[in-house]
């Protein structure tokens, strides 16, 4: 016999995500899910953010297949850092965050950064309970990456283009990149920056400050 179901496949993940969201909201925490390809500079961005916004109380959850290296880097600037190792998992799921939250003192956090596993594709569809999804591209990865990853571009509340200090040295059509993004998500703020030189970082930092002031 045929049983008609019509249910969201990720229902279980989304139920846990909703619990995470509720828990964060109750503690007054603003949270974001930072996604980007391996090597685009997510951890470097978080390190710079932690250093440049000393008045904000941060918490960080970082996902990697293995190693504690990212957490160790960020622990130099932040006392509340949790490393999640997914093993073979190419993305974080709500359950990972649910468990990580148990290791954080949420009443001492204003802003939670969840740095996802390096991957432009798989993480996008998994709600973690965050307020905003943030997507990151890098100049060194080529100007066509926004067009090739429409899901991330469409879902993002903010997009970053990092490593703009490399623009003189690699072929990158900035107008094409900007046009591709506008076509998919006309209103999304795009911050073009370099963590190495500091250029453009103010846009990112101001956006975060505005999110925390509530």
């Amino acid at each position, binding site marked *: *016999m*045929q*049983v*008609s*179901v*019509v*249910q*969201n*496949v*990720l*229902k*279980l*993940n989304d139920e846990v995500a909703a619990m995470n969201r509720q828990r964060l909201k109750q503690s007054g925490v603003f949270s974001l899910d930072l996604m980007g390809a391996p090597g685009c500079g997510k951890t470097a961005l978080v390190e710079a953010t932690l250093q440049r916004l000393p008045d904000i109380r941060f918490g960080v959850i970082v996902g990697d297949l293995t190693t504690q290296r990212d957490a160790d880097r960020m622990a130099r600037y932040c006392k509340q850092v949790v490393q999640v190792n997914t093993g073979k*998992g*190419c*993305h974080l*799921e709500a359950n990972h965050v649910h468990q990580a939250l148990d290791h954080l003192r949420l009443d001492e956090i204003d802003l939670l950064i969840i740095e996802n596993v390096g991957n432009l*594709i*798989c993480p*996008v*569809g*998994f709600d973690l309970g965050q307020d905003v999804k943030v997507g990151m591209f890098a100049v060194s990865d080529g100007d066509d990456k926004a*067009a090739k990853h*429409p*899901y991330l571009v*469409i*879902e993002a509340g903010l997009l970053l283009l990092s490593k703009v200090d490399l623009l003189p040295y690699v072929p990158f059509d900035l107008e094409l990149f900007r046009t591709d993004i506008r*076509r*998919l998500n*006309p209103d999304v703020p795009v911050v073009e920056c370099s963590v190495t030189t500091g250029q453009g970082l103010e846009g990112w930092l101001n956006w975060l400050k505005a999110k925390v002031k509530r």
Partner: protein
Amino acid sequence: MHELSIATALLELVARNVPPGSVVRRVTMEAGPLRGVEPSAMQWAWQSARAGTACEGAELTINLLPWSLRCLACGNQFTARDVYVACPACNADGPLPQGNDDLRLMSIDVDVPDATDTKS
């Protein structure tokens, strides 16, 4: 590969919707284009994940849904297999994607254990 996570989640959802002891013959799912489900990857993931479950011999039918798009020049709402298409009404480029990111278990074809069946 996120298809494996989707397959695992699908199996859990199927298990919740059929009585214990059922033998599932077919599972039908729908995936919107935003989900980036690649059919052959999905089938591979399904075959890997279903072993040892009530879905062990079950076929997976995947309905891939088209993009919903809105033309910014003439307002035409239409669907297409690709997001980078021209408006079929006025030929303008760059229609705005409206979704879709559905990922749904639609139906299960199942042999339910007979109450009078003495075989386990």
